[in-house]
């Protein structure tokens, strides 16, 4: 073929280019993701003059394609000829920054921010700044919202040497001010959420003279959806200002936000409380934030109380050390006590997830006197989530007062959770078992909890049985093989004679999990005989799980046992009448490299059985 060499190299690229507008979205997406390959093949010149103009106009596409495109263009600088030509990427990104889909716009803004770093100061002024201005004064709110995210990156890099810097900055502030008072709440929200970032790049004088009025205006916007975003901006601005200005410039507004009529705004204050605390420093924290936090903990809206309850530990931790204990004991603890018997379960569960952390801050005596009663109340709470959260954080208390203090109440709580009617609750408590075992010690465990762990093995929900086997493995890791041999292994192996085949299979699953941690001796001496015996079970599911189990424990066994005991059994299973037993036996044999099989056996059984296996794996899970 003439020119074959040229064709061969062009063909894949030609396919990629053609698929840029294939009817199938997936193909278009693949093609867009390989845009760099296309650009590389076209060369920088054609990428700039042909590919980019085409991409600029293809904003009709599906969101996922546009998203991929916006992302690609962020790292396209080299492909258009380096920083010198990086401004060529602005038109397609500009049109992507105006589409209705928020994720696409955000990605386009992200890419624009990225490539703004690659512009020279002059290019930034000539190409990038006008783009931001165009977006900021666009007809549609979509472009104006995108503009909000760009002020912060482009202005610090316009060279301070150029005489236009001052005027550029002033126009930037002016544009941002216009956006802050935009007609549509969407733009005001975008401005509100980017205000803090914009403030960071400005000189302190500008922050004081221009940003503060904007912040005050946004924080008293008529729409609470705007006001709530101003809270975060307030936190960022507070971090920028010197201590002496905070009281006059930011605090009145923030105080007002903490008492806003709308619970969503108060929620936001509660949610950002630790950041706020950091930003305003210890003095204001003592005088202003402590009462504000008390109010949030007592708020009439449960959502706000939940958010505040989540912050209790962090807030207390970051209190100034000299007065920490007094503040907690006199101001915070009374509120916490009320929350323990809150009417809302989410509030209680949020509190339960952090309350244990207070014990390290307050020390042993206070914990025993004040916190312990609260823990005990929560351990008896009607909602399982509250009890679970307490149990999951036991380690904090253990360090301070030891777990013995709690064990009296702990046990009934654990037992109740372990027998909860909801299997997800049972699953959650199983996951904490290894932690509890570590805290409580082997003696207590054997006495009280061991029977629970064994009971889960015969739970009627598969997920619980599965988690229970995994739990046994973790316990053995903690307590050692000898403990396993004495307490767990006999019980597990005893189940091999159960009349329910599901329980017999649980034995196999346990052996799968335990063989490695128990080591070669226990596995060969105690487990293997049981497994081998089960190969004659009348239920096929058990038999093929024997094959799988043998494959699994094979590496733990020594080679003489493999050859003498395992091999004959597997060979026998390989001739089983059941398709699946045969399949897994053969798989185990080949997996263990016991011997080379004639290949025809494989080709005969493989395809058919694997289909059946799918069928069976459904029937396995109850």
């Amino acid at each position, binding site marked *: 073929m003439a020119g074959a060499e040229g064709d061969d190299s062009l063909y894949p690229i030609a*396919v990629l280019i053609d698929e*840029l507008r294939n009817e199938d979205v997936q193909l278009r997406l693949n093609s867009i993701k390989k845009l760099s390959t296309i650009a590389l093949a076209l060369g920088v010149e054609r990428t700039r003059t042909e590919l980019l103009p085409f991409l600029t106009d293809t904003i009709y596409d599906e969101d996922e394609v546009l998203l991929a495109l916006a992302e690609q263009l962020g790292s396209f600088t080299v492909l258009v000829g380096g920083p010198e030509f990086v401004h060529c990427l602005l038109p397609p990104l500009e049109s992507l920054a105006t589409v209705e889909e928020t994720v696409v716009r955000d990605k386009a803004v992200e890419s624009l921010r990225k490539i703004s770093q690659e512009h020279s100061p002059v290019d930034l002024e000539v190409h990038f700044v006008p783009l931001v201005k165009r977006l900021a004064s666009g007809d549609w709110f979509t472009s104006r919202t995108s503009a909000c995210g760009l002020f912060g990156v482009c202005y610090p890099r316009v060279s301070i040497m150029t005489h236009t810097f001052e005027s550029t900055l002033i126009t930037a502030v002016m544009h941002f001010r216009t956006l802050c008072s935009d007609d549509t709440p969407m733009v005001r929200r975008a401005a509100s959420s980017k205000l803090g970032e914009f403030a960071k790049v400005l000189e302190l004088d500008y922050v004081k003279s221009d940003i503060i009025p904007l912040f005050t205006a946004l924080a008293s916007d008529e729409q609470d959806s705007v006001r709530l975003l101003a809270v975060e901006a307030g936190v960022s601005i507070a971090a920028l200002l010197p201590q002496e200005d905070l009281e006059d410039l930011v605090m009145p507004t923030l105080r007002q936000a903490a008492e806003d*009529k709308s619970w*969503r705004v108060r929620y936001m204050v509660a949610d950002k409380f630790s950041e706020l605390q950091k930003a305003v420093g210890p003095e204001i924290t003592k005088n202003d934030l402590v009462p504000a936090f008390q109010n949030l903990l007592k708020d009439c809206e449960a959502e706000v109380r939940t958010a505040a309850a989540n912050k209790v530990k962090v807030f207390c931790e970051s209190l100034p050390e000299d007065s920490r204990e007094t503040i907690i004991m006199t101001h915070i603890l009374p509120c916490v006590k009320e929350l323990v018997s809150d009417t809302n379960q989410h509030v209680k569960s949020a509190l339960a997830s952090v309350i244990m952390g207070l014990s390290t801050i307050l020390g042993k005596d206070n914990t025993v006197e004040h916190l312990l009663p609260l823990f005990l109340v929560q351990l008896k709470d009607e909602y399982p989530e509250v009890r679970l959260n307490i149990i999951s954080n036991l380690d904090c208390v253990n360090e301070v007062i030891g777990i013995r203090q709690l064990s009296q109440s702990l046990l009934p709580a654990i037992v109740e959770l372990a027998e909860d009617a909801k299997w997800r609750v049972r699953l959650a408590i199983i996951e904490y078992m290894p932690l509890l075992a570590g805290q409580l010690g082997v003696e207590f465990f054997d006495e009280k909890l061991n029977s629970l762990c064994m009971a889960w093995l015969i739970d009627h929900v598969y997920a619980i049985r599965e988690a229970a086997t995994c739990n046994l493995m973790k316990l053995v890791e903690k307590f050692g093989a000898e403990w396993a041999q004495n307490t767990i292994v006999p019980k597990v192996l005893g189940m091999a004679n159960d009349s329910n085949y599901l329980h017999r299979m649980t034995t196999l699953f346990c052996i799968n999990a335990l063989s490695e941690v128990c080591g070669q001796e226990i596995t060969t001496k105690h487990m293997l005989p049981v497994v081998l015996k089960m190969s004659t079970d009348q239920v096929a599911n058990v038999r093929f799980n024997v094959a799988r189990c043998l494959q699994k424990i094979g590496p733990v066994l020594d080679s003489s046992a493999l050859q003498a005991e395992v091999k004959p059994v597997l060979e026998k299973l390989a001739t089983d009448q059941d398709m699946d037993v045969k399949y897994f036996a053969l798989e185990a044999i080949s997996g263990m490299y016991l011997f080379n099989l004639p290949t025809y056996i494989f080709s005969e059984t493989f395809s058919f059985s694997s289909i059946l296996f799918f069928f069976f794996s459904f029937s396995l899970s109850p």
Partner: protein
Amino acid sequence: MSSGCLFVLRGFLCLIIKDGNLSLFLRLLVPCSSPYEIYLFFNLVCDPADVISTVEFNQTGEFLATGDKGGRVVIFQREPQGEYNVYSTFQSHEPEFDYLKSLEIEEKINKIRWLPPHNPAHFLLSTNDKTVKLWKVSEKDKRAEGYNLRDEEGRLKDLSTITTLQVPVLRPMDLLVEASPRRVFANAHAYHINSISVNSDCETYLSADDLRINLWHLNITDRSFNIVDLKPENMEDLSEVITVAEFHPHHCHLLAFSSSTGTTRLCDMRARALCDQHAKLFEEAVDPSRRSFFSEIVSSVSDVKFSHSGRYLLTRDYLTVKVWDLNMENKPVETYQVHDYLQTKLCSLYESDCIFDKFECTWNGTDSVIMTGAYNNYFRMFDRASLRDVTLEASREVCKRRAVLQPRRVCVGKKRKETDVSVDSLDFRKKILHTAWHPKENIIAIAASNNLYIFQDRLTPNGHHNMPEIQSAPPK
């Protein structure tokens, strides 16, 4: 009231008559001196799927959307000359089957709401009983040309002829209007959705069913927040259902919802996350001496609309429309009788189920006139300032070209004039449930069964977008 003092609103000129079925239409262009043209879309067979179930203008009034029982949405665009033409038609919902409950889910569009303009495309929410969908209606006028491996007819090129790579270029093409589903908000309602309303914060909307109101974010389809829940622990204690819910036009935290007991509640979402406790309750005490078996049924609120100013609430019950001032809860500031003459007919209306008809109501652009539908293809308008009212008819027979609608009068007992219609001869199968008023001009859209009528005030200058004063007709 003598017909002589009737006003203006009869000056509405018949502009367009449209039948539901767009596939079978005959376009009749009438050359006349009128600046308006009349289009008649004849429907040969009346298919139940064509019955219009909702009508809604967008924020500028340039577009009008209708939804029908067949799950279709038809969008009309106003031409520069003033008339509305079909812009796009698409199938919004399909019939479905809920296998868990063994229930059929109808495709009927219950409500359509336009989103405020984002960009050159238009966005609207449409809902059936269970699922809300967000649609994007956009225009496409460019097409990519130039394939590497195929020629323009789509045939594969000989590979040996390919020596350079070709980048596609975009060329202009005929305008193509596409409707694409952007979001599907499903699985959040156990009962039938009766209303949707977009919040003024432009990022959330509500959907209300018989017992619950959910709040959605427009970008998030996999979760919604329940803000009102009227479901009692025991369904036997059920005493009321939600009939309509709507957001305040300016305050993003206010919403109103009405119930089957005739009350309308205003909720403040700032106060708490769950709005079961209302901020205000609008309810008029019923005179105990006038209570009857039907009192509760006829007091059930079938529609609630905030005025454009946000100051008033308009509610429609079976016999009246009421205007409430948000600052006065104990009684409405205005009450208008829609068809008082039906008072004596309630018994037969109950038997025919007509008493459960849900009539909608609407404000004009300046909140000075109220419109609502009635039976016999009649619709009623009330001028709030002059307290005058008019009954007009939207039917194929009277909506002739250039026709000026004549007021109708329903009389109880003996006819006083030739044109009077007696109560007994009203056709209760012909009802106007859905009406809409252009947000700025005196253009109204009336859905009567499978016909859509668009009337325009004849005093409106052609293509001129200002709001003419509503004038009284000269006394005869």
